[in-house]
C-alpha cells in the first residue's frame, strides 16, 4: 500500500483499549501524518486541525489494529483463491491492519525474488500492511534449506514451511541453527506426516463413526515435543503455529517454565468449534448461535469444517481458552486459508484443508468474551500486543523488558516500530468495533475470494466498524458516521 500523507483524523469518544499501554478508558485520538499525535479525554483535546475528519466512535471500542501472524494470501500462484489485494481487503474488513503472509505460494517464497514480488503486489494494491514469511526449505519440500540470508535481506519476518511440517528432524535442527544465528523466529506447523498420512479430521470416536481416517492428537504433540527439544538444543526462537490440542498446551507450558524460547498461537476456529462441526452447520458450535437455513437440507461430511490441524474436542477447546487466559498461548492468528468452490465442493477426503477466517475472526472470538470465558482486554492483547512483540515491533512494559529483549533479537525493517499499540508517535493503525452488534455470517458478502467458512448462517455478536492504517480509513461500515 502507498502511505500517502493523509488528512488529520480524530477518532472521537470511543472506549480505547490498548493492552500495550495498559489503557482502557474513554478517549479521543488525534492522528496526524499517519501517526498518533495525541490521545486523551475529549474535554482536554486540542482544537481539531484544518480539514480534519472526525470518526464518531461513541459506544464503540477502539483498539490498536489487529496483527495476523498467520494468513495465506495465495499470491503468486493461486490467484483464483485469493490475491494480495483481495486478502488484505478481507483483512481490513476484519479489523486487521497487518498480516503476515505464509510462503506456500507457487513459486514458494524460498528466495528473495518471490518476496520482492509479493512486496510489489503489496505496494500496488494492498489495503493493509503485508509482512512476508519465508519458507524454511526450498519449495517447502523439507529437503534443503531455503536461501535464508537472502530472505532476511528481502525483509521476511519469520521462516515457516506452513502447510507442511518439517518432517526431517535434522533439517529442522539446521534451520533452527540458522534461525538462532540471525535471531529469526521459526514458525512450525506441527504434524508428524507418518501419523497423519491420508487423514482428514481429528482422530477419535467421531472419525471412527464416520469412517474417515483421523489425525491423532499425538501427530501434533510429537512434533511440538521434538521442536521444543531442538529449540533447547539450538537456542532458536520457536513459534508453534495453530496449537489445537490440550497435550500441546501442556508441552508448551512446561517448555516456557524451563525458559526455552517458545511461543504459540491459536486460531479463532480452534477456540470456538469442535470436530462435531463436520456433522453439519448446527453441530460443534461453542457459544455460537446458528440460524436455521430455509434452503436445502443439512448434511454431514461438511467440508467447510475440514481444516489442518483439525477441529478437536471440547476438552481441547477448553484447554486452549485456558491457555490464552494464563499466558501459555501468546497470540491469536487466523490461519486464513481461502479456497475456491471446487476445492471444497467435493468428496470430504479430497477437499482442501482450510477456513477463510479474516472476516469472521472478531465476531467468533467475541463469543468467548460475551460468555465470560475471556476478558476483552486479553482478547485484544492476543490480537495486537502479542503478535507485535513477536515481530519485534514493541517491547512490553519496563518490568517485562528483560524477557522481551531475550525473546526478540530480529525485527524486519518492513515492520514499523510500535505497531500493536496506540502511544504518541506510534503508527496510526487502529480498529473501531462494536462489541455488541449482531450480524449473520453470509459468505456471499465476504470480500475475500475464499467463501469457505463453517460459520455461514451463524449469528455473531461483535463487528468491525472501521479500520485505519497509517491514518487512512481503509475500511468503514455503512453505519459509521464521519464529519
Amino acid at each position, binding site marked *: 500500500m502507498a502511505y500517502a500523507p493523509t488528512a488529520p483524523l480524530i477518532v472521537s469518544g470511543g472506549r480505547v483499549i490498548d493492552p500495550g499501554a495498559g489503557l482502557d478508558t474513554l478517549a479521543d485520538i488525534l492522528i496526524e501524518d499517519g501517526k498518533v499525535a495525541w490521545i486523551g479525554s475529549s474535554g482536554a483535546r486540542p482544537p481539531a486541525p484544518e480539514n480534519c475528519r472526525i470518526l464518531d466512535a461513541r459506544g464503540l471500542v477502539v483498539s490498536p489494529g489487529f496483527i495476523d501472524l498467520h494468513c495465506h494470501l495465495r499470491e503468486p500462484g493461486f490467484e483464483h483463491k485469493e490475491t494480495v489485494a483481495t486478502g488484505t481487503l478481507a483483512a481490513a474488513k476484519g479489523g486487521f491492519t497487518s498480516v503476515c503472509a505464509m510462503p506456500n505460494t507457487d513459486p514458494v517464497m524460498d528466495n528473495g525474488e518471490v518476496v520482492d514480488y509479493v512486496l510489489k503486489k503489496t505496494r500496488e494494491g494492498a489495503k493493509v500492511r503485508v509482512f512476508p514469511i519465508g519458507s524454511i526449505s526450498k519449495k517447502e519440500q523439507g529437503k534443503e534449506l531455503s536461501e535464508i540470508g537472502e530472505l532476511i535481506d528481502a525483509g521476511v519476518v519469520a521462516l515457516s514451511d506452513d502447510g507442511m511440517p518439517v518432517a526431517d528432524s535434522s533439517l529442522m535442527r539446521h534451520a533452527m541453527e540458522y534461525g538462532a544465528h540471525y535471531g529469526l523466529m521459526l514458525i512450525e506447523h506441527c504434524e508428524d506426516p507418518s501419523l497423519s498420512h491420508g487423514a482428514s479430521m481429528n482422530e477419535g*470416536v467421531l472419525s471412527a463413526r464416520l*469412517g474417515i481416517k483421523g489425525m491423532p492428537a499425538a501427530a501434533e504433540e510429537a512434533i511440538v515435543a521434538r521442536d521444543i527439544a531442538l529449540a533447547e538444543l539450538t537456542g532458536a526462537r520457536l513459534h508453534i503455529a495453530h496449537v489445537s490440542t490440550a497435550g500441546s498446551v501442556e508441552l508448551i507450558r512446561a517448555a516456557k517454565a524451563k525458559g526455552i524460547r517458545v511461543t504459540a498461537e491459536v486460531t479463532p476456529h480452534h477456540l470456538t468449534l469442535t470436530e462435531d462441526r463436520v456433522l453439519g452447520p448446527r*453441530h460443534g458450535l461453542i457459544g455460537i448461535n446458528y440460524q436455521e437455513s430455509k434452503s436445502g437440507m443439512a448434511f454431514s461430511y461438511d467440508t467447510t469444517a475440514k481444516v489442518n490441524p483439525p477441529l478437536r474436542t471440547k476438552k481441547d477447546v477448553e484447554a486452549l481458552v485456558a491457555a490464552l487466559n494464563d499466558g501459555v498461548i501468546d497470540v491469536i492468528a487466523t490461519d486464513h486459508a481461502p479456497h475456491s468452490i471446487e476445492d471444497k*465442493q467435493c468428496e470430504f477426503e479430497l477437499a482442501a484443508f482450510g477456513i477463510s477466517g479474516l472476516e469472521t475472526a472478531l465476531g467468533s472470538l467475541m463469543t468467548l468474551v460475551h460468555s465470560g470465558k475471556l476478558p476483552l482486554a486479553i482478547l485484544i492483547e492476543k490480537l495486537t500486543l502479542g503478535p507485535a512483540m513477536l515481530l519485534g515491533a514493541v517491547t512490553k512494559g519496563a518490568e517485562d523488558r528483560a524477557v522481551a529483549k531475550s525473546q526478540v533479537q530480529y525485527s524486519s525493517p518492513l515492520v514499523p516500530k510500535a505497531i500493536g499499540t496506540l502511544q504518541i508517535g506510534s503508527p496510526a493503525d487502529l480498529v473501531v468495533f462494536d462489541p455488541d452488534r449482531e450480524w449473520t455470517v453470509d459468505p456471499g458478502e465476504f470480500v475475500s475470494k475464499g467463501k469457505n467458512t463453517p460459520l455461514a448462517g451463524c449469528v455473531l455478536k461483535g463487528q468491525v466498524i472501521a479500520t485505519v492504517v497509517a491514518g487512512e480509513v481503509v475500511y468503514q461500515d455503512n453505519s459509521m458516521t464521519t464529519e
Partner: protein
Amino acid sequence: MAELDLYTNTVDVSTDISTTIDKALRSKHLLDVDELTTEELELFFSTADAMKEVLSREVKKVPTLRGRTVVTLFYEASTRTRVSFEIAAKVLSADTINIASNTSSVVKGESFVDTIRTISAMGVDCIVLRHSMAGAPYLAAQHTEASIINAGDGWHAHPTQALLDAYTIREKLGRLDGIKVAIVGDILHSRVARSNVWALSTMGAKVVLCGPPTLLPGAWRDYKKDIADEGDTLVLPRDVEVEEDLERALEDADVVMALRLQKERQESGLLPSLRDYIRYYQITPERLAKAKPFAIVMHPGPVNEGVEISPLVARSSESVIEEQVRNGTSIRMAVLYLLLGGGP
C-alpha cells in the same frame, strides 16, 4: 393405507401373502442406517417378505417401477452388490443403467459433483452409488433431485448389507431382540460393521466387535457411552461392545459374523503376518464351539476361505452365507420400492 400394488396386471393377487403399507420412510434417500427407526426397519423387512414371494415365482417380474430409471454408479469394483441391485430393479420393471467409473467420463477428470448433476439432469429417479470415499453419498444428495441409495461408501456405511444381514438373522432365528451378534475381523476399515451396529442394536440385538488391536477403532474401545452428554451425537450405539479377546466375544453368541481381511492390511504394517491373523482370529470349528449351539455364521463376502474363516465353517450347516446373498435381492427390491414407489 395404500395397498402394495405388486400384483396388478401380471399375477393373481394372493391375499395371504400381500401386505399393507401404512407408513412411509422419512427420507427419500438411504444414506446410512443410524437414523432408521425400529418401525422403518420393520417396514423394510415386511416389504422384503413380499418381495421374496415375488422372487419365488416362475415369472419373476412385476410392473411396480415401470417407467422409473435407476442408475447404478459404481466407483469401486463390485459384483454382488451391483448385480443384486440390477436384478432387484429389473424384477420391479425399472429401467436400469450401469455406470462403472472406468468407463465413464470420470476418467476424463469430471468431478463427482458434475457427474451427479449430469446424470440427474437426464431425469433419473434413483442413483445407486458405490464410492471409495466416506460421505460421497451425502455430497451426491445435495446435488440431485433423485433418490440416493448408498451401496457402500469407503469405510463408512453399507446400509443394504446391514438390512439384509438383519433380515437374514430375523428369518433364521425368528427374532433380533435380545440376541448376541459377534462381528469379528477388520472392524476399522469395515463399512459392513459400521452399518450393522446401528441396524442390529436398533432392533434390540447386542453387538460385540472383535479383532486385532490395530483393526479396531481405538477411540471406540475407550468410549464411555455413559459419559456422553445429553444431546451429544451418539457415535456408537449404547449396547455395542468392543472386545479384543475372541473367546469372550464368541461366548454365547447367537450369530458370528466374519469380515473379509484384505491382504494390504498386512503390507501396511497393521498385522505381523497373515499367519498370525489366521492363528488368532480365524473362525474355526473349535472357536465356533464357544458360541451357542445352533448359532449361525455369516459373512458379507467375498470370502477369503482359510483366512478369516475356515472352509469347514464357511461350508457348514451353520453357515447362512448364500442365504445372505439371496436375501440381498429381496431387501434391495424393498429399498427401491419404498424409496421410489411405496408409501401412502
